[in-house]
């Protein structure tokens, strides 16, 4: 089928990359992007990293520094507009305000929003987070802040500037990055996590390193089961399942994200409430999906991987999948993850979490820098660089081929066995 009109729903990095990839794959028809955020795409991972850890507090500067250059894909951009419905038989995207967009091809890149701990107050619609997370208290302030959009980041940075006491709920990478940023700004910070922070994402070894560094820098880590928020005269109280009660001036929750698929209800595209794509990003021949919204096949099963490089890689595959169908290359997902905080910077290539101690461990030139590798049971490797500057392609070679890849000129000796704890 000839595609003359392609509509992209979502103007984050997945939508933007899809547009660029459609153009570079030769699509010269009409391209329309619908984005619920009013901004051009910006660097989302930097919000919890550079922005929160930065010393310059001017929000305008911060916004500008994180804004990406204007797109070159020559699409009609409808920014600040949400898709509210989809009729896949009539091939129509419905917009808030009543408009409709017909398409020959559709890219679903509507992303995800921050999950809220306080139930029933979710920002509705695609990309609807960032507006009054958690529902307001009597004095109008939100019960919980989240960090997903640039507006969230600016608000958080403003609130943290007066050094309130902070409770961060959620021991994943985002919660840890927020906790690190708040500590950096001089706040007293308590992190609530029912498992060791980062252990679900990284495995015990790396989680231990991060948690030790965090505690050394003054982070208080509290377990105690599922947390809930209770309104309180002057702030929000956090009550844990075991009865522990915590108080702070500011509560930030980082308890995951949920895909923006509300607008697809009734479209028959969802399977068990999830949007699933095939190995070429397709939901149907004329509909593809990419980024935080999509479940896709990986070597470790069908997953949703809401990470920056995953969104970029998925979008490239989906764009070609939409134009070329079965002739398009299949997606070979190569996990790449990074986080930073508490003086540590980690880059990891390969699937995580990794079990047990690393099979290879080499210190770098600077104190505390480490290069690590795990042999996984499925035969693939995972490599991690901790405060260790290494080009990512080289780290990938370490993950794929083992330590010999680092020293191509040297004889391939087996590395010394690392000390076991």
């Amino acid at each position: 089928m000839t595609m003359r009109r392609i509509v992209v729903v979502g103007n984050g990095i997945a939508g933007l990359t899809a547009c660029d990839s459609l153009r570079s794959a030769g699509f010269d028809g009409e391209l329309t992007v619908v984005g619920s955020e009013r901004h051009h795409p910006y660097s989302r991972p930097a919000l919890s990293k550079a922005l929160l850890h930065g010393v310059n507090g001017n929000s305008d500067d911060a916004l500008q520094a994180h804004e990406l250059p204007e797109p070159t894909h020559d699409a009609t951009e409808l920014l600040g507009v949400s898709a509210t419905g989809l009729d896949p038989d009539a091939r129509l995207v419905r917009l808030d305000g009543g408009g409709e967009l017909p398409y020959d091809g559709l890219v679903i890149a509507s992303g995800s929003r921050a999950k809220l701990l306080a139930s029933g107050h979710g920002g509705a619609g695609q990309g609807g987070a960032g507006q009054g997370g958690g529902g307001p208290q009597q004095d109008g302030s939100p019960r919980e802040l989240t960090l997903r959009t640039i507006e969230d980041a600016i608000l958080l940075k403003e609130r943290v500037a007066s050094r309130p006491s902070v409770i961060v709920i959620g021991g994943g990478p985002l919660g840890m990055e927020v906790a690190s940023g708040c500590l950096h700004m001089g706040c007293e910070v308590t992190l609530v996590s029912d498992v060791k922070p980062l252990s679900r994402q990284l495995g015990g070894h790396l989680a231990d390193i991060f948690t030790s560094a965090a505690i050394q820098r003054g982070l208080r880590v509290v377990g105690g089961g599922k947390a809930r928020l209770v309104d309180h005269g002057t702030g929000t109280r956090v009550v844990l399942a075991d009865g522990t009660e915590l108080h702070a001036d500011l509560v930030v929750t980082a308890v995951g994200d949920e895909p923006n698929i509300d607008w697809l209800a009734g479209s028959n595209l969802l399977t068990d409430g999830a949007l699933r794509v095939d190995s070429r990003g397709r939901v149907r021949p004329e509909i593809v999906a990419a980024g935080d919204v999509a479940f896709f096949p990986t070597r470790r099963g069908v997953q949703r991987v809401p990470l920056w490089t995953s969104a970029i890689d998925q979008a490239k595959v989906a764009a070609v999948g939409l134009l070329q169908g079965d002739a398009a290359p299949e997606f070979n997902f190569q996990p790449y993850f990074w986080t930073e905080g508490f003086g540590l910077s980690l880059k990891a290539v390969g699937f995580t979490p990794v079990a047990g101690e690393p099979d290879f461990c080499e210190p770098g030139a600077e104190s505390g820098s480490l290069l690590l590798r795990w042999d996984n049971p499925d035969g693939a490797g995972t490599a991690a660089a901790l405060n260790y500057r290494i080009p990512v392609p080289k780290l990938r070679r370490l993950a794929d081929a083992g330590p010999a890849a680092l020293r191509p000129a040297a004889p391939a000796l087996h590395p010394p066995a690392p000390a076991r704890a």
Partner: protein
Amino acid sequence: MRIELDRPRCEGHGLCEEAAPKLMHLDDDGELVIDVPEVDGADLDAAKAAVRVCPVAALRLAAA
């Protein structure tokens, strides 16, 4: 336009190199080297793509 690198912010992810291999590369230590700082035409599009994919917003384009 001129490609500007905020070196302290750069963490050597290398996504920019994938987007614009003719314009920049990571050296063996993981430091980014801008090989072609002044860009126009097709190079400018590649440079914009490189700036966009940087996850730490370390790259910018400025008027030459």
